[in-house]
């Protein structure tokens, strides 16, 4: 059993931010767990404030709780002090709503947003009283599933997770709980459940596959189980339309501020920009827009329900939405909703700056632009289709709109990057500062750089990451070039990028290293003040893993990847073509602009780019 409220409250004074573990949010759903067929624990492997901001989890929570045979409760990774308290008191990790142990749920579903949360997943299973390894779990244990972007290359977690849910979760999670309910009623074996799940489109059950390693690479091949074979390739689930999908217009409202403390409306899913480093840009195709009337209606509903004074119109590149100006002006001017509007992820152009100006944020906050690379050659290579003139124009419009604080995001360590490319970041920043000065401002230009990490299912999946020492040298190069008033430099931890690079393209062998690191106490690896690199180094050594082979090795064209049996819908041939174009610094357009670029998903998956307002999307070209 989990602790009673009286026992818990006597202990919570010992931990930081105890409200993380108490729940009671407005709009949280608490059903009687004994009266439903399926008790589902939605597990987020990071702290509460991060987890409650995650839109995907809000969507799944509200869909599951809308089903009368399911109760969905939440559980977040306890901070280290709370983990200690749980151990000291002998309490299991418990759900927020009913305070019952993780192990007492039928299904535990993890959200996989980031590779550096993997040790937290093991910690949560362990604290929850669930055997870590799938093979050690029996009929009395929960089914452990996981979804989210990392589920598309999940082999490092394959030993610990029973089934991965690939792609859009809205329909998939309902299919999964239905299969589970029917199986439970029949009282069939756990193996039978796994087989049935493998029959659901979008579900990958790793234990039904054998990993074969040879000179061509690492492949997962379906095992022959008395005539049963799981599909050789599992396809990601893709919602045909976002417009018709359910949306959490009455989300729970945390009592302590989440990292994104505002209402959210997803205006479209997918992205057509085709930046070659960006995994999300490849994993969520095709673009599916919501109708502007629906965006408006949802924004007002969430605002009314929550009491928030700000609504964020979220997507991977919000300025690309076909009705963005209309949507913003309707909420702010035509029929004021009484709240501010914010747009994450703007493009680097005057149009976006104009949008930012409409939002009226110039006086109070800075403007963030992400040119991603300093030189034109490098921007072309990564398909960030923005010219130097456009960047400077955007900066000029920003200064004339009243911004004086401009933050620029870049990556270093990109494939084919030279020192000149790195120094061009500093040149670009100085030029922007000059523009600001000429316009009579006292500009601050903040340059924020992170290390490039090659991700599966992207054109750069064949590319090596740059080792931390070299990354640090490039950081220093840039820092020295960026000295002077009005220029600020910020960078991400190079070692963190290296660890991420190992797990992003990991195979099943990494499971042993992951478990070893967890046993050594590694937690919150994404948090620079928590990650323990020495423990990780030991874990790799003890398990015979060469992390460099995962992170810094360039893969040959015909290598079979540990995620090749999981299809995002974007063909590997397209990714390779993009990679070749990258080497010649050739760009590829956004298919939303009218012509298909042949990524393959629309034809292969029977889906289409859906633009709002009845605008015609590109007609895809089959089989290039």
């Amino acid at each position, binding site marked *: 059993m989990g602790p009673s409220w009286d026992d818990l409250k006597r202990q919570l*004074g010992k931990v930081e931010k105890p409200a993380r573990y108490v729940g009671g949010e407005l709009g949280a759903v608490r059903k009687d767990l004994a009266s439903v067929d399926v008790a589902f624990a939605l597990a987020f492997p990071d702290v509460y404030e991060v987890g409650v901001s995650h839109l995907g989890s809000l969507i799944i929570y509200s869909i599951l709780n809308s089903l009368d045979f399911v109760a969905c409760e939440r559980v977040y990774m306890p901070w280290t002090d709370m983990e200690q308290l749980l151990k000291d008191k002998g309490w299991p990790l418990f759900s927020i709503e009913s305070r019952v142990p993780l192990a007492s749920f039928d299904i535990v579903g993890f959200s996989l947003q980031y590779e550096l949360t993997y040790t937290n997943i093991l910690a949560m299973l362990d604290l929850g009283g669930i055997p870590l390894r799938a093979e050690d779990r029996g009929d009395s244990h929960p089914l452990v599933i996981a979804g989210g972007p990392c589920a598309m290359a999940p082999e490092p977690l394959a030993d610990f997770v029973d089934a991965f849910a690939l792609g859009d979760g809205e329909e998939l999670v309902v299919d999964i709980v239905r299969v589970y309910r029917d199986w439970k009623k029949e009282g069939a074996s756990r193996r039978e459940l796994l087989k049935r799940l493998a029959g659901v489109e979008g579900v990958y059950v790793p234990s039904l596959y054998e990993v074969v390693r040879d000179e061509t690479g690492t492949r997962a091949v379906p095992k022959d189980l008395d005539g049963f074979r799981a599909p050789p390739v599992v396809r990601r689930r893709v919602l045909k339309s976002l417009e018709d999908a359910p949306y959490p217009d009455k989300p729970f*409202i945390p009592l302590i501020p989440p990292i994104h403390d505002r209402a959210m409306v997803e205006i479209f899913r997918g992205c057509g920009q085709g930046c070659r480093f960006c995994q999300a840009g490849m994993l969520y195709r095709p673009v599916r827009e919501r109708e502007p009337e629906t965006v408006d209606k949802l924004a007002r509903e969430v605002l009314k329900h929550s009491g928030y004074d700000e609504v964020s119109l979220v997507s991977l590149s919000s300025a690309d939405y076909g009705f963005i100006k209309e949507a913003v002006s309707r909420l702010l001017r035509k029929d004021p909703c009484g709240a501010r509007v914010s747009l994450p992820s703007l493009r680097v152009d005057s149009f976006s700056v104009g949008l930012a100006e409409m939002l009226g944020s110039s006086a109070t906050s800075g403007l963030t632009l992400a040119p991603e690379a300093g030189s034109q050659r490098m921007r072309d290579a990564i398909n960030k289709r923005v010219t130097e003139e456009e960047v400077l124009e955007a900066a000029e419009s920003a200064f004339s709109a009243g911004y004086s604080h401009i933050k620029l995001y870049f990556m270093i360590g990109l494939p084919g990057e030279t020192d000149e490319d790195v120094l061009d970041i500093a040149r670009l920043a100085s030029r922007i500062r000059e523009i600001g000065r000429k316009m009579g401002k006292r500009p601050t230009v903040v340059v924020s750089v992170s290390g490039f990490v090659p991700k599966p299912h992207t054109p750069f999946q064949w590319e090596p990451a740059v080792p931390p020492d070299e990354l640090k040298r490039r950081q220093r190069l840039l820092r020295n070039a960026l000295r002077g008033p009005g220029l600020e430099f910020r960078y991400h931890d190079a070692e963190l990028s290296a660890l991420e690079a190992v797990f992003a393209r990991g195979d099943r062998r990494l499971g042993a290293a992951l478990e070893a690191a967890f046993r050594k106490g590694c937690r919150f690896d994404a948090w620079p003040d928590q990650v323990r690199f020495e423990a990780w180094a030991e874990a790799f050594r003890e398990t015979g893993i060469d992390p460099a082979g995962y992170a810094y090795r360039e893969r040959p064209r015909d290598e079979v990847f540990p995620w090749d049996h999981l299809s995002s819908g974007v063909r590997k041939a397209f990714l390779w073509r993009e990679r070749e174009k990258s080497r010649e610094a050739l760009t590829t357009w956004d298919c939303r602009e009218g012509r298909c670029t042949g990524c393959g998903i629309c034809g292969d998956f029977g889906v289409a780019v859906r633009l709002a307002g009845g605008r015609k999307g590109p007609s895809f070209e089959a089989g290039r």
Partner: protein
Amino acid sequence: MRVRAVYEKGDRVRFLGHLDVGRCLKLALRRAGWPVEMSQGFSPKPKISVYAPLPVGVAGHREYFDAVLSGRPDIGALARTLASSLPEGFALHELYPVGDGEPPFEETVKASLYSVDMEGVEPEAIRRALDAFLKASQVLFDVVRPNEVKTVDLRPFVLGVGEPEEAGADRVVLDMTIAHDKGRTVRPQWVIASLAEFGLNADPREAIIDRRKIIFE
């Protein structure tokens, strides 16, 4: 129009900090549709004052906040909309208008009456420690903050303590009246912690503390 609300920060929301409470009330007032006036300036804020901060962990049975409203809305209607907009754990007890001539709230607060609930201690042991505490001329206590350690004399703030009462097996509850001096006050947890000096062996973090009421001049 300025209105004053007497509300409860209940057991279930005791772990909210003062800023969290302010945020929850602000969201609730927007949900309730109260016409709260906004401050001037670059980032206008609703004119709400939440008084007499309670620390994380401490519940409050009769807490106070003021809101400045535009127009003269009906008090009964305001109370109804707010009551139905508050999250679980909060409750609205009273709502009334306050005139412009009133002295600032914090200046009118004389003391807070707390109840302190402890487990695993003998009433007799607490009684003895408290007697010694009250006899002392000063009780210095180090308040550890992230960037500084401040020493305060707790003694003058403790106006009185009630008789420790057994509340079931191994549990003791007692009242404690703590002074406010121009907005300055001390926390009951600090007083419990300082009792170690007088021979009490109790973890102040395990004490469950409620402010029963605020006492005015």
